[in-house]
Structures are given as structure tokens and as C-alpha cells.
């Protein structure tokens, strides 16, 4: 991994991953909404040993702006060894149920904008004939639960898309990785009461992610124990699952 493009670079998990790659002297290209925050990261990553840090403003929600932003990134980096897509929101389930236009906006950010990016990246990466695309989805996308199925569906759709794209790009030498974090203590989950053994830090999650990417795993649960938790969650028969207030 030498040249890395991070989309949604101001997210807590993206930041933690970027620090890992900076310490490995990579060239980083950051795309995010808040320019000031990107600039702060630029300084941080440079001190941490990044070979070079470039940044540009992109609101992934603006689908029209994606193409030129990606092209610019490609031009700057030359070969892109890794694209990490990290942007996302945690919608308020109750509000989604009461206000569908709000729900659509959340889907636009979590799902539509991500699929659009993947759609643009697929030919771009195929052309280079090597590289990795890694997307942060969620363990919530593995099975719908009554407490947050809007979020789950918005992430699960991306996971299904990735499965297909992985097959399509396999013959071109591109690996497509699905990253499924569990509960992570980040600004996105600020409103949730935390504590308990399942909560993890962005640093811990980034460790699982970067290790998984190095190994070329198709699907990374972060931290790894979520793989087994979700295995159990998926195995619960529906006639029981529907009665669980999960």
C-alpha cells in the first residue's frame, strides 16, 4: 500500500486508519466535507510520517461532483493502491419512521452516494489492473433488527452491492472489501449511552481494518469477534428473531 485515497476522511475511523498508513510512510489523499478539519489532519499525518498528504473538499452527497473529485485524486496519486470509503450517518430510527423524506436523505448519504462512488471507481480501478476498494458498512447490515432497520438496510444494501462488484472486478485484479465495524465510540454514536464490553475505540477498529486489508480479506469484521456474534445473530430462526426486541 503506497498511495491511498480516503473518502469521508474526517470520520473517526477514517482518521485512525489514516494515522496507521501515515506511520507506514504512505501518500495519502483525503476527501471530506470540512476543509478546516482536513487541514488539521494534513498536519497531523505529516508529523506521523506520511510521505505526502493531499486534500480536497468533497461532499459525497453531491453526486455530480464525485467524478471530477475522483479524477483529480487519481491524477495526483498516479496509481491508487487503496480506496477507503468511510462517510456515513447513523439515522434516528424513530424519525425515519415518522418522516420518510428524512429517511431518504439518510439513504442518499449511506447508500446512493456510496454506490455512485463505487460505480465510478470500478472502471477507474479496472483500468489500472490492480488495487483495493474497501468500504465501511456495518454489522447492522447483516440482519434487520426492529430497533434500527433503516440504518441496517442502508448499510446492508451496500454490502450486497459489494458482493456483486467483488465478483465483477475479480478478473481485473481488483479486490473489493466490505468492512463491518461493530459498536464504536465515535462522534457518530455520541447520542448513544456507552459502556460494556462490546464498545470499541476507533483505534482498535482501525487495527482490525488495516490488518484485514493487508491480508486481503473480502469481509472484515472490526473488531474480529463481531464475526462470531453476527454468525449467531444470523442463525437465530426467524420465528424466534421476530419476537426479540433487538
Amino acid at each position, binding site marked *: 500500500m503506497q498511495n491511498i485515497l480516503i473518502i469521508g476522511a474526517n470520520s*473517526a475511523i477514517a482518521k485512525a486508519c489514516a494515522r496507521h498508513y501515515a*506511520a507506514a510512510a504512505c501518500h495519502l489523499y483525503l476527501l471530506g466535507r470540512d476543509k*478546516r*478539519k482536513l487541514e*488539521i*489532519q494534513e*498536519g*497531523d499525518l505529516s*508529523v*506521523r510520517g506520511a510521505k505526502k498528504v493531499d486534500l480536497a473538499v468533497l461532499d459525497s452527497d453531491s453526486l455530480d461532483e464525485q467524478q471530477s473529485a475522483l479524477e483529480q485524486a487519481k491524477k495526483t496519486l498516479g496509481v491508487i493502491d487503496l480506496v477507503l470509503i468511510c462517510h456515513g450517518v447513523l439515522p434516528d430510527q424513530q424519525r425515519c419512521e415518522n418522516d420518510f423524506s428524512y429517511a431518504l436523505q439518510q439513504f442518499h448519504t449511506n447508500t446512493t452516494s456510496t454506490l455512485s462512488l463505487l460505480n465510478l471507481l470500478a472502471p477507474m480501478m479496472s483500468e489500472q489492473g490492480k488495487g483495493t476498494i474497501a468500504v465501511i458498512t456495518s454489522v447492522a447490515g447483516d440482519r434487520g433488527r426492529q430497533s434500527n432497520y433503516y440504518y441496517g438496510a442502508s448499510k446492508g444494501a451496500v454490502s450486497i452491492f459489494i458482493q456483486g462488484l467483488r465478483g465483477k472486478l475479480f478478473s481485473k485484479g481488483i479486490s473489493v472489501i466490505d468492512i463491518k465495524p461493530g459498536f464504536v465510540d465515535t*462522534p457518530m454514536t*455520541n447520542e448513544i*449511552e456507552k459502556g460494556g464490553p462490546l464498545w470499541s475505540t476507533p483505534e482498535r477498529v482501525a487495527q482490525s481494518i488495516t490488518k484485514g486489508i493487508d491480508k486481503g480479506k473480502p469481509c472484515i469484521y472490526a473488531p474480529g469477534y463481531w464475526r462470531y456474534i453476527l454468525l449467531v445473530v444470523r442463525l437465530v430462526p426467524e420465528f424466534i428473531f421476530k419476537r426479540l426486541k433487538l
Partner: protein
Amino acid sequence: MQVHSWGRFPKTDSKIVRPQSLAQVQELLAAHQQLEPSGLIARGCGRSYGDSALASTLVCTGLLDHFISFDEDKAEVKCAAGVSLSSLLEHFVPRGFFLPVVPGTRFVSLGGAIASDVHGKNHHIDGSFGAHVKELSLLLANGELISCSPTHNADLFHATCGGMGLTGIIVDATISLKPISSSCIEQRSFKAQNLSEIFALFDEYKDASYSVAWLDCLAKNEHLGRSILYIGEHAERGALDAIKRSKLPIPIDAPSFMLNRYTMGAFNKLYFHKPIKEGSKQIIGLQPFFFPLDSIESWNRLYGKNGFVQYQFLVPTDAAKDAIEKVLNTTRNAGKGSFLSVLKKFGPANKNWLSFPKPGYTIALDFKWEPSLEAVLRELDAIIIDHGGRLYLTKDARMSEQMFKAGYENWNKFVQLRQETGADKVFNSLQSRRLGL
């Protein structure tokens, strides 16, 4: 949400905010002034022991954890205040730099290290943390960001280093690093049978870069004050290895009856009599030398669910023997003991208004919190005041206003500066209220 600091005593309900940027801190401050007259205080890693980082609103700086710049020629790094000393070490040790001063744990934030003006095993040579701060940015009560250093806004600087976060919120700082050629420490140890012997050892090894003693607080009569002195130097040779992360977790509170005078007596005895080759060089890593307790995650839980108080006092050199004898006799007679008691001889004081260290000896004693403890601590307070000593604010959870004001001669100046900058209306902790700051 219920919050406590490292000693797990006291506990209080607080609103926690975790700003992601300076702009958010400023917004917060403006909103706070309009809405709430109650206290707000910055909190880093929550590693102070008592109530100095407890208030009704806590501004946690954990997300303000970025490096800003590094000047390799000058060996100076500038970072946001929420950066932990641990992440600084993780990054800089492999590159041949160590922190100029480290406290007993690396899990403290840069802002916290400055606000507590922490000291380490090299205080007698290098002073406390503040001596190595070149410049810091402080967010005042009115939302203004002001830069201060020993030469620029010096009063604010000397009030802020050691000022327990009561002058404003430290946003970032530039500190100097110490070049090292190896991450190994050459350690030597010496046993002392009593207080006079350990004092003599401290004087004999006053030129050692690092020195600290472990003290058997339960030994009595002719063995009173028996201890083991550890001195250390950075090795010239050896690899520059990052400090390992592995930690032994303590996931639950230990039943508090496990710590009693018998278990502690046995532990202290065994520890003192462990075989050591006195005076011979031993090569050890940074972690076991500087942060032995960091290898046990949440060791604070060993004291049970009611928590503990770390009583760290200092007494001037000429009064030290008498004072320490009285303190140790009082605690032993009261049936209180401490697993780990640490003794250190300080070097000169600095110009910071509320910094703890000044010439003399300091001892840190850990006591499991129980209602009967307070009476014993009051007796100790009286001994310390009588001998011209004081307590460390970072460890304090219970001293009286009168005791504080007797020990810290600059309190008046500090209160005045707080009034002038409007800090007294905004930045308040449970501790500052208790101490009349």
C-alpha cells in the same frame, strides 16, 4: 452520567461533551455562559485521582488529539491538548526522542500534564513538565484564544502550568523532547534499612538522571522508612523500540477486604526482601522503569468499588525525617497501609503559581476509601501543615480549604487572576469549589 476519576472517589453526575474542533469548544463556551452558571472544566484522560476533573459539565479533549508540527532540529513538537503522552511516546521513541518529563503513567493527556504540572523521577534535575513547555494556547472564559509562554503573557502561563484547568482550556502546546539513543534504561537499585539511610542514598545519587524509592510503609522502629532506591540512566546502546501495548486487564472490582493490613504487610515484607544485586547495572525497558503499573489496566479497581485516595504530600528537607516518621507511625497505628508507597526527593521549585514540587521529600500513599479514613487523613494533614508541607492537587480529593491555603502561598494571586479573566465564573471543578479557588 456518573463520572469519577482515577481514584474512583468521589463520583458525581456530569454532562459530558466531546468537542471535535476548537470552534466547537468556543461555541460550547458561549452557550455555557448563557445557560448554566454551574461549573465547567476540561478533562483529558481522567487520570487525576480526586475531583479536580469533575464538574457539572466536562469538556473531554479526547477528540482533539492531533499533532500539529514537529521541528526535528529543535526537537520541539506542537500538538493539540488531547494527545496522550502514550501516543507521543509511541510515535517519538522509535525516532529517538523521549518526553522531557513523564509521570507514573503514560495515559495522561498533554493538557492534563500541563494543568497538573506533572513531575517525574528526574524532577531533581529537569524540573516538572511545565519547564519544557515552550508555548501554549489557552482558551479564556470570554472565548478568546491566547498564546502564552514564559516570556509572553507570563503570568497566565505560570498560572496555567499547574493551574488545574482553572484559568481556561488548554488547546494546544509546544514542548521540547529529549533525544535518546536507545529505549533501554540502565537501572541500579540500593536497599536502605531506615529513613536516614534512604535520605543519605538520595544525596549520594543526586546526580543520577532518574531516582525514586519504594517505601515499606508498614515497617516500624529501627526499620521505619526502609526502602529500595532505584536510579536510572538512558542507555547509550540498544534498539529504539516502541513501548509494548499489552496490558493485563482487571475487568471487575476486587472485593475490598482483600486489601487489609495483613496482606499489605506480607506484600511489603516480600517486596523489601526480594533478592536484588545492590548497585549492579540492570538493563530494562522504558515501560517497566517509568510506567510499571501501566502493564495492569485499571489497577485502580484493586481497591474495590468505593475507590481509593492517594495521599501525596511533600515536606521540606530539614523537616522531612520528623514529619515522615510521624506520618508513617500514625497510619500504621491506625491500621491503614498502602501497597505501593513512593518516595522521591525533589529539586528546586519553579515559578508556576500552584505547582506542587519544591525542595524536600514527597511520599505518595494509597489508601482504600472507607469512612474511617478521613479522621486519619486529618491527623496527617495536621502533621504536614506543622512541618511546612503541602498536598498534591492532582491526587487530592478531600483536603480542606484551610490546608490548601496554608500550603500554597500563591493562592491569592491565582484567585485574583481568575477574577480578572472571568475564569471564576466559568471554569470550576468540585475541587476548586472545595478549596475556595
